[in-house]
Every structure is written in C-alpha cells, then in structure tokens.
C-alpha cells in the first residue's frame, strides 16, 4: 500500500516532534515560504559563520506531516555543512523528489541519505510534492537573501 510508503514511521515521528522548530538566536539569514493553496507556511532561519558554514538552522511554521517532517529533517541535516554543500544537497533532494530514483550527493552520508529517502514516497502523490519541497526552496532563498516570499507554483 502506497500510504505506508508515504507515512513511514520516521515521517510521522518527525511530523509529530519536529526538530529545530524554533527561531535561531542571532540568525543572520532567513526567508519565508508559503503555499497559498493549502495554507502551509514556513520561515527558515540560518546562522552562518565567516566560512559560510551553517552553525544553526531552524524553522517556524505549520503544515502537514510531510512538510513538517521535511523541514525537520532538512534543518537537522544541513547543520555543519557550508553553503555550497547545502545547496548541492537541495538540488539532489529536489531531483530525487521529482524523478531520480536515488540521492547522489557526496555531501551526504548513508545515514543522511536513508533519512531523506523516507520522503521519496511523495513521488506518487503529485499534489503533495510541494509539501515536501517548500522548506527546501525557502532554504535556498534564505542563502540568497531573496526578499520575496517563496511560493510554490500551483
């Protein structure tokens, strides 16, 4: 059954108890994202050091299990990565959600890949893909200091 793939234990767990659901103190990058269709919204905060390494990442917002789990796993996983690595991971993740069977990034270890692959179930739910990707788009926006809110096209 597909639903089992979509709502894996790890998703439910992260959805219920999202990591980093708070506002990073002394953040120096942030961006907002919103999905007007379903009302999901997310605010991503980053604290980068001089080498543009993510010292802390967090988010605020509300949404479905998929979007909360996705933001939770994402913020966990980019900590300690530099901007370049983080963006490369975003690319890889978005590619996997859209079409690729696997993750390929060398900036991810096996454990991290396993966690991210848990979100691959949304592939079969085109309407839910945006739930999984909103926080990732917003992350890029935060790095790039874009002023406008990210909006998932619908």
């Amino acid at each position, binding site marked *: *059954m*597909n*639903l089992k793939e*979509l*709502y894996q234990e790890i998703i*439910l767990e992260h959805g*219920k108890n999202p990591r980093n659901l708070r506002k990073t103190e002394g953040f120096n990058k942030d961006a907002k994202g919103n999905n007007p*269709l*379903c*009302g*999901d*919204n997310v605010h991503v905060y980053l604290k980068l050091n001089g080498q543009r390494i993510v010292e802390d990442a967090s988010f605020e917002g*509300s*949404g*479905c*299990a*998929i979007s*909360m789990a996705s933001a939770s796993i994402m913020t966990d996983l980019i900590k300690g990565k530099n901007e370049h690595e983080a963006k490369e991971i975003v690319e890889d993740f978005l590619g996997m959600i859209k079409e690729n069977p696997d993750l390929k990034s060398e900036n991810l270890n096996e454990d991290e890949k396993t966690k991210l692959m848990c979100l691959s179930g949304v592939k079969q*739910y085109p*309407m*839910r893909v945006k*739930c999984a990707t909103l926080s990732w788009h917003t992350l890029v926006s935060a790095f790039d200091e874009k002023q406008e809110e990210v909006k998932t096209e619908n």
Partner: protein
Amino acid sequence: MNINHIKKEFPIFDEKIQNNDLVYLDSANSSQKPKVVVDRINEFYTKQFSNVGRSVHYLAVAATNLYENTRTSVQRYINAKDQNEIVFTKGATEALNLVANTLGQNFFREGDEILITELEHHSNYVPWHFLRKSKNIKINFAEINEAGEITLEEIEKKITPNTKLIAITHLSNVTGAILPVKEITDLAHSKGIIVVVDGCQGAPHLKLDVQDLDCDFYAISCHKMYGPTGLGVLYGKKKWLEELPPYQGGGGMINEVNKDSISYGDLPNKYEAGTMATAQVIAFDYSIKFLESIGIDNIMKHEAELVEYGQELLKKNNSVKLIGNPRNKGGVLSFTLEGVHPHDIATILDEDGVAIRAGHHCCQILHDKLNIPASARASVGIYNTKDDLDQLNESINNCKKIFNIE
C-alpha cells in the same frame, strides 16, 4: 424522481476511481453532473449549435429561444418577479464583482461602510475590498458565535449610521450555518441598507424565494447546482439593474453606438456583453428541471438526514472535532482531527476513494478566527447516502490508525 436512487443518474458513479467506488463528499466545492445535463450539452453542440441573439437563421433563432427558456426556468426556480432580473454571468464570483463594481461606480462615497461576516468566502470579500481601496470605504465584520453562526443580533450590533450595504452568505461553506437572511434584510431595509446575498451554497440546497427573502441581489454558481462549469446567475431587483451602469462593454449590450457616444441596451442585455456561455445556459435548464423533478422539499429532507447522521457519527468519533454547531445547518461537515493535518487526512481518505476538501476553503478570515490554519470538509449533495458517511468515518479511523492516535 426518487432521491434514494439518484446516484444512478450521475454517470461518474459508474467509474472506479483508483480501483475504488467514488465517495464524493466535495459538493460544496463543485457538484457532479447528471446524465441529462451532460447529454443536453452534447445534443446542443452536435445537433443545434449556433450563437444566440445575433443571426436570424433557423439555428440561431432556436438557440436564442432555448437560451431564454433557461432564464424563465431560473426565474421560476428562485421565484423572481421578472425574468429580466436574471443575469447570466461566468460564476458567482463574477456576479459579486458585478454588483460591487457597478454599485461602486456611483453609489459609494468615502466614509461609507460595508458590513460583511467572518463566514464570507473570499469571493464575497475581495470585491468589496477593491471598493475599500478605490473609494476609501470601511469594511466591518459581523462575528461568529460559539456555534459558528451569525445572528441577527450580531448584525444589528454592527450596523452603524454609515452602513450602506450588507453582504452575507446564505449558507456558510465551512460551518454550514444558514443565516437568517429574511430577518437581516428586513432590518437592513428599515435602515435603507442594501443586502447582497452570496447564494452559492444556498441555491443548490435550500428552497429559494427571492421575493420572500427580499434581498437586493443574490449570486449563484451553476456548477454547484448540478450544472455546467463557467456559468453563474446574478439575481438583482429590477430597480437596481435598471439604475446601475453596465459592468462589461461589448457586443450585445448596446443600443446606439457612434463615435462620441454610446447608449446601452435594456435588461437583460445590458449586463450580458459579448458572446455568452450559450451551451452552458441551455444545459442549465436541464439542471433546474432535474432538481424540480426531485422536488426541493425532498432534497432538503434528504440532505438534512444525511448531515444529521454524519454529525452523529463524527461526534462519536474520538479525536474528531467538528467546526461549528449551528442550529440551522446545511450539508457541510468541517472538522479537524487532533494530531493529523487536514491535508494528510485528505490524502489518506482519497486512497479509499473518499473525496473531501482540505484547506481554508477560501475562508481565511474564519480559519484565522478559529485559530486553525486549515480544516477538512466533507459536504453532501443529492446523490450521497448514509453509506458514504459510514465510509467517511471508517476512512477517518484509518487515518487515526496510520497516525497511531486514539
């Protein structure tokens, strides 16, 4: 026609949706179409097609008569006094924009106030917001009570000496509350206030008599009334439609045109610029006749039973929280499920063929008030049965299982 066997009049229920029978509980969004209506569209396009009111050849004359027959049917269905009080639009949203725009052209002045309610759909708020911006008027909100209702008393409380217009929904598409439109209109008229009713949810589900309601305008979406998409109706009292300026300009709505002046046609042409949704209007006649053949009293009874039944089921279901508990309630069951986001509910229900809506249902004001970002909504139509609601409940239980909740 017997309402208990009505499902078979709707071809879509013969289909399997991802290997499931379709349990369609999204009629407040848009209703399914009976075979007679779809066949009518087919017949018109394949055997009788012509544009309306513009040529004198046989097909054009026939199409024009068919088109006008629908106007007469709508007049009868809502009991309007005059068939020229029926204007065809692209939807209820356009109908409401038409009213706001044309009233805005010369009726409102800076400082005037419009009273709407927290239950309003964006289509009955944004058009007034446009006026707020262009005319510098104020919009006040009548607030819901605990039951998700708007009471006459609340309306009375919110009326000020500057209130020029009240715009209200007939039946909330979220709480299901049926508003006391007649009483509100009486009160409003006693103070010289215009009343505009968003009848999107009223028209398909309630017995309508616009003369009795006495409202000044009433907006309808045909696609929610078992009719085609791309069509709406604006009822407006003749005195208003005659007095107000036209909304859109173009072919068919003019009288005399020359290089420095233009005079406009009479009702209803004045408000029907350009080629109208001919096929849709002609097919909508069959929607109305279909509803009449069942009988609006039977429809109301059937849907009241369904909503009663569904409400009981959901009330008994732990973790389900119904939104609103109005005494006078239409066929809408909005709810939240503790610990499960409405979008997750909708996806899980969908896997069983149960189609509901999740989100704010174009009522962000209301959701903000209730302090929830979204809700799940099951809404019924003439074709639903108690079995559908049992399946709804069962699928909600499946959600709970997947999310490991009680």
